[in-house]
């Protein structure tokens, strides 16, 4: 059963990032930081890891003079996250935790 758990989502922060991006089309770095209560460095590391997996789409643009980076979940990311949730659910159903 446990092999169905996706390693990419093992940390609470990454799970949080994915959950939030499932219900929001895209979010800025600052919005994510506020929602998840993470430090800049910590959040950036997790975002990069998810991006490297191909689960996140990163868009860099400028709002006026300020750089603004927004993140969105890719189709792959949504699929992987859904599978992970299904595995969690199945695990709970067996009642052996």
């Amino acid at each position: 059963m446990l092999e169905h758990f996706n390693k990419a989502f093992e940390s609470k922060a990454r799970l949080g990032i994915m959950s939030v991006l499932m219900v929001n089309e895209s979010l800025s770095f600052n919005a994510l930081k506020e929602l998840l209560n993470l430090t800049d460095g910590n959040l950036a590391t997790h975002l990069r890891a998810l991006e490297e997996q191909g689960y996140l789409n990163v868009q860099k643009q400028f709002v006026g003079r300020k750089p603004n980076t927004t993140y969105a979940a890719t189709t792959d990311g949504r699929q992987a996250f859904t599978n992970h949730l299904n595995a969690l659910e199945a695990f709970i159903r067996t009642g052996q935790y």
Partner: protein
Amino acid sequence: MDSSNRPLETLTEIRDLMQRSSKFLSLSGLSGVSAGIVALVGALVAYLRLKTDALSYESTSQLSELTRGEMMRFVLIDGTIVLVVALTLGMFFTIRKAQKVGQPIWSSTSKRLIVSLIIPLITGGIFCLAMFYRGILWVSFPATLIFYGLALLNASKYTVRDLEYLGISEVVLGLISLFLTGYNLLVWAIGFGVLNIIYGTVMYFKYDRKS
């Protein structure tokens, strides 16, 4: 931090994050109650001043005490004051609730909520001004209710779902009063006053008291 150790806890956290990130949940029930009270006062003032409830097209031509121009100006000023005071009080209670719960007030969700409210409201406002300008005074009363209802319906996607019921009630009331003319102020008082107060009270006991 291995989350797979506590799947149930993890699922609860995921759900909470999804809710919190897509909906602005600090909307206070007291905002609705205060807006309703202000609207009732506004309708009462209008009733005392105009001494009639029938602002329908048949009767406006027969108003003797006030000229049509004076009446239009009075209704506009009264309506604007009610809107400004209701919005101010509404924001006050919502900001207070957000601070109490420790949620940010200016977030991506509150921005989305405001935009989804404001677009139908401004459309309705311009529509009513055009009706005023064309001299079709009575239409703007049901129209304000209809546009207000549509604005709430639109905004309900970004906050508590219950707002949907208030929106639908306002639209239905507005549509009815398009046909049942002659009770403009009464319908206005019910729509903006009574319905808001009922909704606000229900919301207050359902969500605010717990937190």
